[in-house]
């Protein structure tokens, strides 16, 4: 018979063990060593501990099992989510991990989604933190037309306040890139990021020929853009981070990123399990609880504070984990779901009148970058080819420009704000799941047509260029997360329900940006450069649900619309405000441009939250950290 077990109380209880939770685990357990506070830290995750040597060494090339069978992803029978486009619709549950046509990166276990992702990184610049005020200043009176039912907000802190946290986060995870140009890194521009205080710790990965051509083409007139080698989180060299955790480099054996999202067998692909959690483990103050499904947070009816996390172990026993302070590091909508199930924070209540909406938890959902496949630019470089996938790592080898994002060009009269990072020339690693299936399965691929379309496809005598740029998704009052009335997880609790449709800023910007990219491809000497646009509202919903959701549980300047304050500390009131829970992740991002990585933008918040938690533990009475 399942029983209820009360665990020894901890100072810090961490919910979910992904990127952000790893930072909290390391910073708080080591803090206790450094200042003799002896904080006890407990981290709980629903999945297992992945060991790259034992779990991935021989199975990483198992494309059918890993890339298509999704054996390292969160099991859907355990819990799924439901989706609809408008609040008047019945939301359908996600029943299946779509075979690799579309992206997913739903993590399970220590390291979370980052156990199998592309490792793409890239900071968000100053504009991304002030999108609303910058737009109102430069293009006054336009935002409500550009973004109907606008819910775009500024961040509680500005870029320069996050910069030191960016540096800590990048050093912890061993990011590769180069922003200031040198003889060793011809891929960069001497102007650099004007807003970075120091370079990345590791050099970028070797550039492909296509990337070098892109770089020289955009540097010259008429563009005069500023190319940089792509930033990613796949170690290019052996490395030891600030916690003394050694990191193995990438060995370029492919099966890396792309739609199949492979695991890494050397630990070169950064995630919490191989960067921050090892430091916490060595501290002696840290307990890792795996295969345990958190289903409720208990709250004190008088103070409103969170008192304990309840979870099921694999045998169905209920464990109660009391704690002083809690960190919500669950992935995406799971962070929202646990709060809605537990009555922590004020649930968002939608209304067709944007002035009548209320609550914060679930509000302001937006969509990251890659699922948008509406507007494509393509072209062919006849003189550059190569093996499609002899090796490679995800995203490495390419060159990016930032000149077509943020407010780096005049948006007057364009009907959208922001833009997109443009990257060309990467060597995505992968097998047939990526290269053959990613193009889609259709009636055109039967009979005599399939084989010729695939013959020698992995031996390229030319390079096909492609890009799908689009402007950022903006928060509206109509895109949100709540609890589904009809479907439950395996334990009988309601699933998260996503209500979401594309916002016009995305597809209006896409057309403009695609034509800019078309000019670049043409300058590069590509033939058959074409822009194909098939976008209409509600028409394309390629699995945006599982990939880089942003917002929905935002930090902000005001508790009427944000869940967390400038310390990532909860200030969303119910009857009493649960001040002793903090949270960080992509969905706590207030807003952002189409930067390559919402994860990278979330990262600094985890360091900010770690500082906030340390300060909170020093407060005499529970309340907001000043």
């Amino acid at each position, binding site marked *: 018979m399942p029983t209820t077990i009360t665990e020894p109380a901890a100072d810090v209880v961490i919910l979910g063990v992904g990127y952000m939770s790893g930072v909290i685990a390391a910073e708080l357990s080591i803090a206790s060593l450094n200042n003799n506070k002896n904080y006890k830290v407990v981290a709980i995750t629903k999945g297992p501990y992945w060991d790259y040597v034992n779990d991935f060494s*021989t199975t990483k*090339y*198992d494309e*059918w099992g890993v890339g*298509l*069978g*999704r054996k390292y992803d969160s*099991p859907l*029978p355990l*819990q799924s989510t439901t*989706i609809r*486009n408008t609040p*008047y*619709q*019945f939301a*359908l*549950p*996600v*029943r*299946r991990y779509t075979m690799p046509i579309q992206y997913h990166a739903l993590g399970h276990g220590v390291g979370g989604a980052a156990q199998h992702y592309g490792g793409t990184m890239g900071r968000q610049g100053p504009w991304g933190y002030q999108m609303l005020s910058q737009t109102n200043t430069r293009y006054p009176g336009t935002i409500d037309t550009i973004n109907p039912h606008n819910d775009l907000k500024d961040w509680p802190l500005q870029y320069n306040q996050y910069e030191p946290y960016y540096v800590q986060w990048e050093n912890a995870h061993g990011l590769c890139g180069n922003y200031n140009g040198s003889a060793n890194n011809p891929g960069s521009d001497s102007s650099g990021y004007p807003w970075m205080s120091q370079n990345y710790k590791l050099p970028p990965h070797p550039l*492909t*020929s296509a990337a070098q051509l892109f770089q020289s083409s955009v540097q010259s007139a008429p563009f005069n853009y500023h190319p940089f080698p792509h930033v990613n989180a796949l170690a290019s060299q052996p490395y030891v981070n600030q916690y003394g955790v050694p990191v193995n480099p990438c060995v*370029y*054996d*492919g099966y890396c990123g792309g739609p199949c999202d492979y695991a890494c067998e050397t630990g070169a692909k950064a995630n919490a399990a191989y960067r921050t959690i090892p430091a916490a483990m060595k501290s002696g103050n840290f307990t890792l609880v795996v295969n345990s499904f958190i289903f409720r947070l208990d709250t004190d009816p008088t103070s409103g504070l969170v008192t304990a996390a309840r979870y099921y172990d694999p045998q169905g026993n209920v464990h109660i984990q009391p704690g002083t302070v809690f960190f919500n590091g669950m992935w995406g909508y799971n962070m929202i779901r646990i709060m809605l199930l537990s009555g922590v924070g004020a649930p968002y209540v939608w209304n*067709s009148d944007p002035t009548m909406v209320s609550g914060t938890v679930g509000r302001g959902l937006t969509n990251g970058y890659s699922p948008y496949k509406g507007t494509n630019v393509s072209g062919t470089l006849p003189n*550059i*080819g*190569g*093996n*499609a996938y*002899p*090796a490679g790592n995800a995203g490495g080898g390419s060159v990016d420009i930032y000149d077509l994002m943020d407010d780096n060009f005049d948006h007057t009269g364009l009907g959208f704000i922001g833009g997109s990072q443009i990257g060309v020339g990467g*060597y995505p690693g992968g097998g*047939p799941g990526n290269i*053959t299936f990613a193009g889609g*399965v259709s*009636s055109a691929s*039967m*009979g005599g047509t399939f*084989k010729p379309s*695939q*013959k020698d*496809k*992995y*031996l*390229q*005598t030319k390079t096909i260029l492609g890009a799908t740029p689009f402007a950022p998704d903006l928060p509206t009052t*109509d895109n949100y997360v709540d*609890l589904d*009335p*009809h*479907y*439950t997880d395996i334990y009988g*609790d*309601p699933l998260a329900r996503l209500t979401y*449709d594309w916002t016009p800023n995305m597809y209006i910007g896409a057309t403009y940006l695609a034509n800019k990219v078309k000019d670049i491809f043409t300058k590069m000497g590509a033939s058959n450069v074409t822009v194909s646009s098939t976008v209409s509202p509600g028409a394309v*919903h390629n*699995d945006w*649900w599982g990939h880089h959701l942003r917002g929905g549980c935002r930090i902000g300047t005001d508790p009427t619309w944000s869940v967390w304050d400038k310390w990532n500390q909860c200030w969303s009131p119910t009857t009493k405000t649960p001040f002793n829970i903090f949270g960080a992740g992509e969905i706590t991002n207030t807003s952002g441009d189409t930067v390559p990585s919402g994860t990278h933008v979330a990262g600094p918040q985890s360091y900010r939250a770690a500082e906030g938690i340390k300060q909170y533990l020093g407060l005499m009475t529970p309340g907001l950290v000043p």
Partner: protein
Amino acid sequence: MVDQTRREFLKLGLAAAASAVTASAIEIPLFGNQNSSMQTQLNSANTQIANLKTRVNTVVGFVSLSITEQSLLEKIVETIIPTDSDPGAKEAGVIYFIDRALASDYGQSANMFMDGPHILPKVPASTTNTLTVNPTLRWANLPGNSSAPITYTGGSIGTPGVGAGITASPRVGSGINYQYPLNFREFWRVGLSALQAYANSAYGGNFETLSSANQLLLLQDLWANKPTSFSSILPSDFAYELTFMTWAGFLMDPIYGGNQNMVGWTYTGFNGVNFGNFYGEGQDQKALMVATTPTRLKPASLAQYQQQASGGA
């Protein structure tokens, strides 16, 4: 290349195959006064046993598909990827790949969310067409909720009942819309049977008996949702699954039963786990990665890799 077909195997039968394995271990008694005829018979028997052993070791039996499904599906996958001067679905053993998949997690929908209610996507909305569904108990018990049935009208933002269906159509399914109360084994059973029924009603005979041109036309009919009656499933959903799994059987690692002898990888030029030096070619993978011209590498499979990694030849 494995020179075998499913038919040969069927002729042998599973029972025969099983006893052949046993027979190979039996000592055949030799008599002191054996004559040349007996010797010839014995030699012949030994040869047959050896042949049988070879075949048993190379042929994959069926663990899921019924006899009628086998002959139908064999023709379907050969229509999707025909054999010409190069190997096709037949030589790759695609049907064995699918058979095994249907018997394993894929067929059991073991990693899918299968709970009800099962409501098909894109149910059209109108002022008279609404959808009413009861909430679950725990949802109803949360503050602010009730156990009253919920009615959905569909519609765009600001205009209920107008402009959008009652249900969203997220791209999360077989093809795009898998919301069936069937696991994939059942889905294939229903789909194959419906396909055969359509072959008879629209083309006048079992799929296997149709001309190859008509076989292809029929599959395209499914993609275009031409069959007006196709059991309880959308024909294009089944066509998607047929096509997807046939591709996978041609291109996934041989360890899953398809892509036999890596014919799919040899044809497409994919290297498998050979990154330039698996067979001692001496190529550097980092150099290959940034090269401007391709290098054809002999592919290597997962089984080979695991053997090499564990110290085998």
